[in-house]
């Protein structure tokens, strides 16, 4: 019913014929698809590297923020400033700062814009993911830490073997959500000139003034994220089943 209503409103609007031709042209779609798909491979590469980078940096930040030793206060303050700054700043500003700022320093010579884009994605998403992991760490009951330490485990061993595994399990749905968000934000590396799916679409558009390639790349991004979105749903459902079966303590 609703879909039909939307369809009729659109189809009867004055400009619909124009819009259909510029955004949903089958001819341009077929032409654009392979080019955009090749660009998407680059997005996938960025995504893979960024995921690993985010996992490492975010864990480090979360561990730093959850220390209590007074000696580590400066580090803790630094980590807090970091997460505040990178969660507050628009992604695109970070991309510009890293993408154009670092080469401007002329320290490293020429750096591929893909690498710079990946670094920017890692910096921003680590701040978000660190907060999620920190929430997980704080949700692990202190008695778990006490039990581990009283077995003679060091602080580092306790965090690695006892606290982190439980912390991550508690926040898996939130982590998966951040991953899905990151999956589409890797498309922003295009603003630095990296030839990814978005950028390849942009090039095609500038040649033909037909916007269908954008739609094609959007569609591919959705397809890329679908498996993971459903994995998230499946996992959440499984968690719920286990809880109903008698608790996941």
């Amino acid at each position, binding site marked *: 019913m609703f879909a039909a209503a939307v369809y009729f409103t659109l189809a009867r609007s004055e400009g619909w014929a124009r819009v259909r031709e510029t955004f949903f042209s089958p001819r341009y779609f077929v032409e654009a698809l392979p080019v955009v798909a090749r660009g998407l491979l680059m997005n996938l590469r960025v995504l893979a590297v960024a995921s690993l980078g985010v996992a490492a940096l975010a864990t480090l930040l979360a561990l730093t923020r959850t220390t209590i030793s007074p000696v580590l206060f400066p580090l803790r303050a630094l980590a807090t400033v970091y997460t505040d700054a990178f969660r507050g700043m628009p992604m695109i500003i970070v991309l510009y700062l890293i993408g154009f700022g670092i080469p401007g320093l002329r320290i490293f010579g020429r750096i591929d814009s893909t690498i710079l884009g990946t670094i920017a994605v890692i910096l921003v998403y680590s701040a978000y993911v660190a907060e999620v992991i920190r929430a997980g760490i704080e949700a692990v009951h202190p008695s778990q830490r006490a039990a581990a330490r009283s*077995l003679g485990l060091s602080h580092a061993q306790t965090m690695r*073997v006892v606290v982190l*595994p*439980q912390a991550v399990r508690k926040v898996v749905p939130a982590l998966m959500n951040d991953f899905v968000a990151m999956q589409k934000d890797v498309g922003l590396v295009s603003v630095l000139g990296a030839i990814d799916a978005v950028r390849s679409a942009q090039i095609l558009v500038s040649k033909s003034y037909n916007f269908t390639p954008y739609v094609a790349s959007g569609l591919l991004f959705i397809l890329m994220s679908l498996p993971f979105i459903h994995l998230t749903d499946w996992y959440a459902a499984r968690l719920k089943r286990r809880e109903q079966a008698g608790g*996941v303590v």
Partner: protein
Amino acid sequence: MDESPLLRFERARKSFGRNEVLRGVTLDVTRHTVVVCIGASGSGKSTLLRCANLLETVTDGQIFLNGEDISDPRRDADAVRRKIGIVFQSFNLFPHMTVLDNVTLSLRKVVGMPRGEAEERGMALLKRIGIEAKARVYPDRLSGGQQQRVAIVRAIASDPELLLLDEITSALDPQLVGEVLDLVLELKSTRATILMATHEMSFARSAADDVVFLHNGVIEESGPPDKIFGEPEKPATRAFLERFRV
């Protein structure tokens, strides 16, 4: 044989903010004895045990293990904890590890024993408490009594010199208390040194070598169980024990 006490509190004090929980406790735990701490909730029993294990640090006074001052801030706390096992009221098993991994964790990570050897030893311990069939399941599949017995063998897996038991039966259903206390008696028969806090008065009377009555953060009275339970001297001790004879 060394006759000095294994564990010694000397005028130990502990405050949380302005609340002084221990107000100068002096206590000896001799090797191969079971010392039972009794007292009302909030009398400082748990704090005393947690201080011995360095989960809390005393605000004043000293604690000696084997004559070595473990309340000195410069000592290696991890090394001290390796010599002391503790079991908590709420079991505190690691829910993301199998029962066997829980038991072998200290052997693998602290002693540095290879996994095979550690698991052999872990299985022997689980066999001793009769739940070797549950070695590969997760703790949430065990009853409270089974979980607490796993927690006990986890604490003794790497042969600590001293075992601290902090109200280990308080979170259990009455019919499960027996199996846990039986295990404590078995440990006593192997000449383990045990300092425990409990509300199980009949167990304290039958199993303790020494009974210590804590009242408002000080040791009000201590001595052999027959004296404390039979002819307590202090009014506070009598008042406390009255409440257990319905």
